[in-house]
């Protein structure tokens, strides 16, 4: 197979003052006709920059310094802007990570797809519309005629990405660059989009350069793999070869960090309930003044769950399933409409505001976003010491406690004087955990604690949680969308869909013999499932 696109010694410079001189340094890569090449790497590895460089859509102040990008014999690195315009869309098309923002919100889908024809061909209006409609049918959008006239916000995430794909394939380009096209999607939708891309690629013979951070996705779709780290291509080869026998240490570490999908043997914990939810419901009414644009969302419906002392309860669901609202109900950040939440023997709803503030010591939360959950204007130590100080501890002892906690979560106690932005994402999440632990809580509610982190960091943070659980005798509620995360640390799992718990039970049972249809489809959609199952690595949670 001949290379359709070959990158030779591509070096892209970063502006002065960046953390490294080159975004890409001497990257050499080959995309062959009819194959899917996955470029894998963690954030900052330069994988997206590679995609931008090919189409010469680099941000300002970033420029190609050396190397060639050969596409059908032409060096794109040296092409004029007009030549590039002719190639973009027609020769090489691209789809992006976030289909909501990648589509113009003010123009219809049909219009935006039709624009491809208007730029690159002389087709008439009727013919343009006909072709756009055919494309939407090709990508299996439900009701393509309606989708033609729809605006981006009227489609679901998966439909938008289908529309993006239809647009990219409008002129049957030789190469399709897909930049993390499924990262923003739910796991079931991701599986469908991956299937669609593979199907279309087979049918049309387009070469696909697929950029991802997820080895599960790689295992699912790739013919060949290229692994990048800090702007350097560290390894490339056939997919099976790289996955089974990674050569480079970085690749090995990445693959090792891919979580397994088998439940570990059950763990012993007390039968006494520390947290009990009975018939909890929460409905949002989006009522404007004088009933303008009123909408009712039943976020949580009649949920009853029990967390045993010392146990870990996973709550799994896709976006919009109500799992985060449930977590906020437990924390009393949101007041449930109905139902009882008991912490030990206390009904939280019966407490006065002052008592509620006092009971905050017993139950604490770890948040999803390591950037947003720390006040950027306070020093790390202060953030951790704040809790004890609110509950009456003097500043001196509170800061000493913060230092201890820093050591406990694996941070340098000397770092308490630094500001949050001086830490990495994983470190910040550790600060968040330290803050939650500062009040010696009995229950820890962790809302997607690792979903914003790179795979290798995810594993470390989960390991920390498991360690702390063992050392401090914590009971944990873990909210996650990722079954692979839940399986690593949870004893019990509850699967939520549209505000309801559709299935719950011990994790081993739910994973091995799912009873509900939805649970089964969730499990089936995990990318690289076979690979993960086969991997069967040593479970982390048993430390």
């Amino acid at each position, binding site marked *: 197979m001949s290379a359709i696109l070959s990158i030779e010694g591509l070096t892209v410079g970063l502006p002065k003052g960046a953390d490294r001189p080159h975004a890409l340094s001497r990257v050499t890569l080959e995309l062959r006709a009819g194959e899917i090449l996955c470029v894998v790497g963690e954030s900052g590895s330069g994988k997206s920059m590679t995609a931008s460089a090919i189409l010469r859509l680099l941000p300002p102040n970033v420029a190609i310094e050396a190397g060639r990008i050969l596409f059908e014999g032409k060096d794109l690195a040296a092409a004029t802007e007009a030549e590039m315009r002719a190639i973009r*869309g027609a020769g090489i098309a691209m789809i992006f990570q976030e289909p909501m923002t990648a*589509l113009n919100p*003010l123009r219809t889908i049909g219009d935006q797809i039709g624009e491809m024809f208007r730029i690159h061909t002389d087709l008439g209006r009727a013919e343009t519309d006909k072709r756009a409609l055919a494309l939407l049918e090709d990508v299996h959008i439900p009701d393509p005629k309606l989708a033609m006239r729809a605006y981006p916000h009227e489609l679901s995430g998966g439909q938008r990405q289908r529309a993006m794909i239809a647009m990219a394939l409008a002129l049957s380009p030789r190469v399709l660059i897909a930049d993390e096209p499924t990262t923003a999607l739910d796991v079931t939708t991701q599986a469908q989009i991956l299937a669609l891309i593979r199907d279309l690629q087979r049918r049309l013979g387009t070469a696909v350069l697929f950029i991802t951070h997820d080895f599960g996705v790689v295992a699912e779709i790739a013919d060949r793999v290229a692994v990048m780290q800090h702007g350097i291509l560290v390894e490339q080869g056939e997919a099976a070869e790289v996955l089974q026998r990674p050569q480079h240490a970085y690749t090995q570490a990445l693959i090792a960090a891919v979580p397994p999908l088998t439940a570990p043997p059950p763990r012993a914990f007390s039968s006494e309930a520390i947290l009990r939810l009975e018939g909890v419901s929460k409905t949002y009414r989006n009522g404007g003044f004088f009933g303008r644009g009123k909408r009712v969302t039943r976020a949580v419906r009649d949920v009853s769950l029990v967390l045993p002392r010392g146990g870990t309860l996973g709550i799994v669901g896709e976006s919009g399933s109500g799992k985060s609202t449930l977590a906020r109900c437990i924390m009393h950040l949101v007041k449930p409409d109905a139902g009882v939440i008991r912490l030990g023997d206390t009904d939280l709803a019966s407490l006065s505001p002052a008592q509620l503030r006092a009971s905050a010591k017993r139950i604490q939360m770890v948040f999803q976003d390591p950037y947003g959950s720390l006040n950027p204007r306070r020093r790390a130590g202060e953030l951790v010491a704040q809790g004890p100080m609110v509950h009456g501890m003097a500043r001196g002892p509170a800061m000493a406690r913060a230092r201890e906690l820093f050591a406990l979560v694996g941070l340098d106690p000397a770092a308490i004087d630094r500001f949050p932005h001086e830490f990495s994402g994983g470190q910040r999440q550790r600060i968040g955990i330290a803050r939650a632990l500062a009040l010696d809580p009995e229950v820890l509610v962790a809302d997607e604690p690792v979903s914003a982190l790179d795979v290798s960091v995810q594993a470390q943070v989960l390991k920390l949680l498991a360690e702390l659980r063992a050392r401090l005798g914590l009971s944990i509620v873990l909210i996650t969308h990722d079954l692979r995360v839940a399986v690593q640390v949870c004893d019990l799992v509850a699967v939520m869909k549209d505000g309801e718990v559709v299935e719950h039970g011990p994790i081993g049972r739910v994973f091995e013999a799912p009873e509900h249809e939805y649970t089964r489809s969730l499990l089936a959609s995990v990318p690289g499932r076979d690979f993960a199952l086969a991997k069967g690595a040593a479970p982390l949670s048993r430390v």
Partner: protein
Amino acid sequence: MRILSLAGRRLAASLPSLLIILIGVFLLLQLAPGDTVDALLAQMGGGGDAATTAELRRFYGLDVSVPVQLGNYLWRLVRLDLGFSAIYGKPVSTVILERLPATLLLMSASLSFAFFFGLLFGVIAARRVNGWQDSVISTLGLLFYATPSFWFGLMAIVLFSVHLQWLPAGGMESIGEGFTGFTRVMDIASHFVLPTLTLGLIFLAIYLRIMRASMLEVLTLDFVRTARAKGLDETRIITRHVLRNAMLPMVTLIGLQAGTMLGGSVVVESVFSLPGLGRLAYEAVVQRDLNTLLGIVFISALLVIAVNFLVDLLYARLDPRIAREGS
């Protein structure tokens, strides 16, 4: 029909604000030194004896307690009666209707002027960001913004009316010339050139700054990258994708600033002696003509609400996300 119900809802939502304003201004003016009869006496030049002033106070309903006056006023308002103007000796609605055209003309002309050139210059500045065009436009914008409008108006009169004699110094049209049809339109237009510039410049400066910032913001959005990846050239990216998105904040701003513009017309109308609402308001305050002032407050609040309603409609046309949500 949907527009009507939208308008109705908008009005209903504005009612509390309107009520707060009317009652607030009413009570505030009770604290003012002197009432409309005092102002009348000043106009007469004296000689009114105690009996006639008491008679006048009774005539204007000023002899009853404040809550009763307020109640009377609100009750009349419910029946859409704005009352009788003490100073002008006519129903307030008539007085306001006579003054409305000049203000509407001034406001719409200034708004169009500011909007059009703000848009144009904002786009040029954003396209040539940090180039000399950008520097010139941004500097001019800042200068316009910093210029007191009445001062600009006075200096414009000195230059264009007094020294160059190109444009009339004030008034709404030439009186007694008997112009009709097209010549009358041109005559009125020539009277509105300087006032429009004077009132519009500061808004031009604001719009151009917003437009420039908004363009630069939109240019960094993902869909612009998509458009580039599709092979669009820069001009078409601007016209087809960026412009409409970038206009949204500017459109919002128009609604927010309708009140400010009306306030600015007080000064401009007084510089150019235009018979408009702004000057009427000033006179009503000075003459303690409570009914007229409240009438103006009422009408200008309606005007602001109407402008906001139009802005909403425009916004809904520009942004499909709002249109579907609103209904």
